[in-house]
């Protein structure tokens, strides 16, 4: 279900992330799915995606599948990802974290006064 009060945080070629103040969580749209993630789950999932070794995937002579299976923190969802999708997801989650960091900086400046 798409909630229209969501604010887009970042988008990439294959997906996008949103924040819902009402639900107090983030939404990841990827591979045609919508997934709700808490702050902890988002960071944990980003860590998993970042830890995928692309060079190893490309050069592994025992595994020619070039796909990786990743689950979210609570194992609510599984993603079977190709190399292109992993690169895209790394960019998407990295960009999302930067936007959240920027939002935190703005809040801090508003609360403490812009100097």
């Amino acid at each position: 279900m798409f909630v229209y009060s969501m604010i887009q945080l970042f988008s990439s070629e294959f997906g996008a992330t949103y924040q819902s103040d009402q639900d107090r969580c983030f939404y990841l749209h990827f591979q045609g799915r919508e997934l709700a993630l808490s702050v902890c789950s988002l960071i944990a999932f980003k860590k998993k995606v970042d830890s995928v070794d692309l060079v190893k995937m490309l050069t592994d002579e025992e595994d020619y599948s070039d796909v990786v299976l990743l689950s979210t923190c609570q194992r609510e969802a599984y993603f079977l990802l190709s190399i292109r999708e992993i690169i895209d997801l790394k960019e998407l989650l990295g960009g999302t974290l930067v936007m959240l960091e920027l939002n935190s900086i703005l809040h801090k400046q508003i609360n403490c006064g812009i100097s």
Partner: protein
Amino acid sequence: MKDLMRQRTSIKPEIVDILNEQVRIEATASAAYLAMAAWCDQHGWENSADHFYTQADEERMHMLKLFRYVSDMGAAAISPQVGEVQHDFTTLREVFETALDNEIHVTESINKIVAACRNANDFATESFMQWYVQEQVEEEYVARRALELFDIMGDSGMDLILIDERIPKIVYQEPGAAGEAEA
């Protein structure tokens, strides 16, 4: 737009990462001390073995303190995977040398965390880490004094027995602590 990130956790992701890395380093240090204790036990150095068992407990306590802090701040603490640690040593001196090298490595890692906290204006974590800074002064002192015994007394059979007897007597006393106690 609400600041959900700040509402959920009071430490930044990059600080969480280095704290989790420190959890792993402390766990590895604990495992390394256990291996040293086992080696000392096998070779009949009972006091040295006891010393390293105590050190292993201390490192685990350091790890748990960090782990709880990360968790209490609303971030995800990661239970560490401990890799291979050194089990084989040639001499008792080598064991203590390795212990000192490990402590120096831990100190450098803690200093990096404090520097990163300052860079990120994370004063709470910096304050929390000050306990570790002080603790490392003590840890390095004990490891260094133990190693100095070999320089003073030598490496022969009788010397090693005397060194093993003196290991439990190495205690770090903070500068001024003796004066305060007397007063």
